[in-house]
C-alpha cells in the first residue's frame, strides 16, 4: 500500500497503543504526548523511504511500539547527559503521594517508578500485550532475558503493592 494512504490509518489504528506505551514508560501525560508526536514523525520519515513490499510486510503495532521504546530510551540518555534543572521527576513520591489514588492510578505510579530495565519489559508484555519474541526484538536481547526482567519487575511491583 501507498505510504500516503497507509499513514493516516496507522495513526488512527495505533495511537491508543502508542499512547499507552508512552504514558506508562514516562509516567507523565505531557512527556507521553511529546513522545507520541516524536514516534509518528519518525514513523512517517521511515515509511516515505520504504518500498511497497516492505510496507506490506510491516507489523505495524510492534513496529510503532518499538519506535516508542527507542525514542524513550534515547530521551533518557540525553536527559542523563544534561542535568535537569526543574523538579527531578514529576512522578516523585514526595510530589505525588500514591495514597488516595484509585487502584489503577496507584498501579500506574508504581509502574512508572520501576527501574528502567524492568519498566519497559513489564509495560510491553503486561500493559501493551506484545509477545516475548516481539519484546526481545524491540529490546535487542534474548527472549529469556526479557522473561527474567518481566518477572523481576512484577515481583518488585507486588512488593510495593503490599507496602502501600
Amino acid at each position, binding site marked *: 500500500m501507498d505510504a500516503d494512504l497507509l499513514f*493516516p*490509518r496507522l495513526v488512527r489504528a495505533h495511537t491508543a497503543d502508542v499512547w499507552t506505551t508512552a504514558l506508562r514508560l514516562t509516567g507523565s501525560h505531557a512527556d507521553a504526548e511529546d513522545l507520541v508526536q516524536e514516534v509518528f514523525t519518525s514513523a512517517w520519515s521511515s515509511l516515505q523511504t520504504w518500498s511497497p513490499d516492505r510496507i506490506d510486510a510491516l507489523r505495524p503495532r510492534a513496529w510503532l511500539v518499538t519506535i516508542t521504546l527507542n525514542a524513550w530510551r534515547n530521551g533518557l540518555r540525553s536527559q542523563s547527559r544534561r542535568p535537569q534543572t526543574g523538579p527531578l521527576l514529576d512522578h516523585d513520591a514526595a510530589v505525588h503521594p500514591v495514597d488516595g489514588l484509585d487502584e*489503577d492510578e496507584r498501579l500506574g505510579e508504581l509502574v512508572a517508578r520501576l527501574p528502567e530495565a524492568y519498566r519497559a519489559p513489564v509495560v510491553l508484555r503486561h500493559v501493551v500485550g506484545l509477545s516475548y519474541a516481539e519484546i526481545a526484538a524491540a529490546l535487542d536481547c534474548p527472549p529469556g532475558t526479557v522473561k527474567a526482567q518481566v518477572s523481576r519487575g512484577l515481583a518488585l511491583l507486588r512488593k510495593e503493592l503490599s507496602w502501600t
Partner: protein
Amino acid sequence: MDLTGLRTAAPAGLVDRILATTGPADDWVLVDGPAGELMVAFNEHGISYVLAGDDDDALARQVRIRLDRGVRRVQKPPAGLVPALRTGRTRGLRFDLRGRTPFEQAVLRAALRIPRGEVRSYAWVAAAIGKPGAVRAVGSALGRNPVPVVIPCHRVVRADGRIGDYVWGGAVKRTILRGEGLDIDEVERLGSAGVVFTGSDTTRIFCVPTCKDARRTTAAHTVSFRNAAAAAAAGYRPCLHCDPVPTAA
C-alpha cells in the same frame, strides 16, 4: 498480576494533533477563479483538490475527509495553473486522482476534452468513456469531482438544454459558463426544442450545437437533428473537432 487496567484511551484530539503535524500533506495556493477565489491543493502527482473561497480550516477539513491528507499554504502555484484558469486550456496540467475509481477517472478525463465556451451532455460523456448506459453514474461522478473548474465538469449539461446541477450550485455553474462565452439562452432554447446536433448544409458536417465550427455556420445554412441517425440518414458526417458521437478510445 493483571496490568491491563493500565491501558488508557489517548487524550481527546491526539489523533488530529498528530495528523496536523506529520504525515502526507498537500501544498495549496489561493488563486482567482472564474467565480471568485479558489483554494487549489496539489502535490507531486498533480492538482488534488479545489474548493471555492479563502478558508484555511474549511480546506483542511475537506482535504482530510476526501483525501485523508493534511494541507499547508504556499505562495507559488503549480506550473500551468494560472494560465489554465485564464485561458480554460488544461493541457499539460497534471492531476492527482489516485483516490478516484477508474470509472470516475475516465469521466473526469472525458470532461477535460470539452473546450472552453462549449458544453456536452451527460450522455456524451457516457458515450465517450464507452459506457453509454451510465448517464446517471456520469452525473454522480462529476458531482464528486475533487477539482471543479480546473477539470471543467461545469461544461456538462442536460441533454434537454437545462444547465443542471453543480457541486457549487446551478447559479455558479451558469456564471462560470457565461464567463467562458457560452450563450446559455441559446443552449436552453435548442435543448428544449429537442435539437441535439446542428449541421451545415454546405459542408454536410454535423456538430454539437456549441462547437466553435457550428457557431460559425450562418442561420440560413444551419440544419438541426434530433439524433445521430437522422444526421447520418441526411448524408451528414460527424465533426472531427467536437466529436458529436464519441466512441471510447
